[in-house]
């Protein structure tokens, strides 16, 4: 994808929005230009803070889930016995939409960042666990034998084979679930907090009836999701260059 094409797509989206605003012609769908102006004004009035709080929550839970899920996935992926033991459990939990646990986690963890981070952690954890596990398990036995014949014991196998092999799994998991993570963050930020983009959007839309500001919040949340997605893309190109050579 070329940058220029992406720019065209952005322009097309804004035009569509403008068109819709004209057609609807109601305060609940302000024109993009008006929202843009409010967006810039709101940056100084706390939108940046809300953005940073949400960003922190996503980044913290991403880091946490990688640190916990990747090693577990590696362990399961290279031990058939453990994998057999745990796979029924994972099989049952994996498809449950983790967002339904939002009230439960809130009840347990109460106010603050912790429940938000834990919710996103739950989503990313299982994605990363399963993908890293499958990646490690799919390493061909011949590859492992070859590396063992070079003198590698368990530790060197982990360092030179399993660890690098898990990297694409982690990044694929993030790519697939970062969108869901932001969506669930929105839900989680509707409750028991006065910080974060979810709170900001809801407050402006439902309480203050400041629709321009609500849309500014939506834009900020979209930028958050897009930024994360682009970052994963960029990391994948940087860290997994072999996937992109012809």
């Amino acid at each position, binding site marked *: 994808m070329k940058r220029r094409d992406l720019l065209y797509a952005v322009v097309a989206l804004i035009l569509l929005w403008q068109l819709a605003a004209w057609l609807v012609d109601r305060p609940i769908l302000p024109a993009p230009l008006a929202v843009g102006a409010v967006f810039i004004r709101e940056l100084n009035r706390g939108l940046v803070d809300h953005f940073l709080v949400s960003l922190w929550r996503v980044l913290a839970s991403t880091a946490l889930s990688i640190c916990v899920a990747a090693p577990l996935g590696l362990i399961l992926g290279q031990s058939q016995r453990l994998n057999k033991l745990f796979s029924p459990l994972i099989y049952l939990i994996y498809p449950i939409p983790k967002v339904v646990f939002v009230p439960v986690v809130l009840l347990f963890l109460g106010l603050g960042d912790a429940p938000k981070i834990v919710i996103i952690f739950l989503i990313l954890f299982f994605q990363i666990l399963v993908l890293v596990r499958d990646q490690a398990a799919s390493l*061909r*036995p*011949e*590859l492992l*034998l*070859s*590396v*063992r*014949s*070079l*003198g*590698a*014991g368990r*530790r*060197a196998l982990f*360092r*030179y*084979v399993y660890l*690098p*092999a898990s*990297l*694409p799994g982690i990044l694929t998991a993030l790519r697939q679930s970062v969108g869901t993570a932001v969506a669930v963050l929105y839900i989680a930020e509707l409750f028991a907090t006065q910080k974060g983009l979810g709170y900001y959007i809801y407050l402006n839309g439902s309480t203050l009836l400041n629709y321009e500001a609500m849309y500014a919040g939506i834009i900020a949340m979209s930028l958050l999701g897009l930024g994360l997605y682009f970052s994963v893309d960029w990391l994948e190109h940087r860290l*997994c*260059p*072999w996937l992109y*050579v*012809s």
Partner: protein
Amino acid sequence: MVVLGSPPSQGCPIPSQRLAAMIETISLTYAYNAGIFIFKDFNWKAQRGETWAVLGPSGCGKTTLLYLLAGLRLPTSGVVLINNQALTRPRPRTGLILQDYGLLPWATVQQNAALGLRVRNFYGPDGTHAPENYLPHLHVRPWLERLGLASLADKYPGQLSGGQRQRTAIARTLALQPDLLLMDEPFSSLDAPTRESLQNLTLELQKENDLTLVIVTHSIEEAAVMGSKILLLAPPPNTQAEVIENPVASQPGYRSSFEYTRITQELRLRLEAFSAQEEAPTGQGTIIIPDETP
């Protein structure tokens, strides 16, 4: 034989070492869990510097033998002696090359070639994972040049042809300066001209580096070309080492010589005798022996 380049060699071995056995199996017995014996009291000896081809029908235990020699499988009973030492784990100076190359897809040719050295540097010269006198380094450039890979150093395995991949695997193994090189069907998935040139290259490298070579193959032609001695394995259990001497192999023009035709003919007859034996008890035509599961 034209010797190209001058990769690190191990110097001339003293004559007494020449005569010492590199490989010796004593009453080697290996059975799978189900009590199926692949080897039973199998005695075999290979001298230092020899080139051996191991030939036999599918399921005869060729690959199993190679894994036993590599220390990746342990005998049910009996001993495998390599360089007069009983084998209990992979040995630092034994190199292993498999048909499927075993390259890391995420590492470049250069990085793949240096993998063995990296593993050694990781453990240090502990005598188990690396020889005790090993000095950590990562020099693989001479090997890449010797194997014609210098211009591909920054490519990934996915960008290489089969022959180039196998040469990378060879560079990786030779960079560890082995004295014993084990190869399992290394050229089976390559096209004929590539296979032939890699066979020649392997024999050149074997001479240059004074390697003992054991190459497992199902191809009669490859066994004839590569093995100055050929170990013929029968349908299991293998109890006796059947050895066919092929001293003129690896001499110039061998592939078109009368001796080559004669030995391939002999090998073919011996293999056909095996399948005749297999068919005899049931008399229901060909028995399909499942591919050996390593």
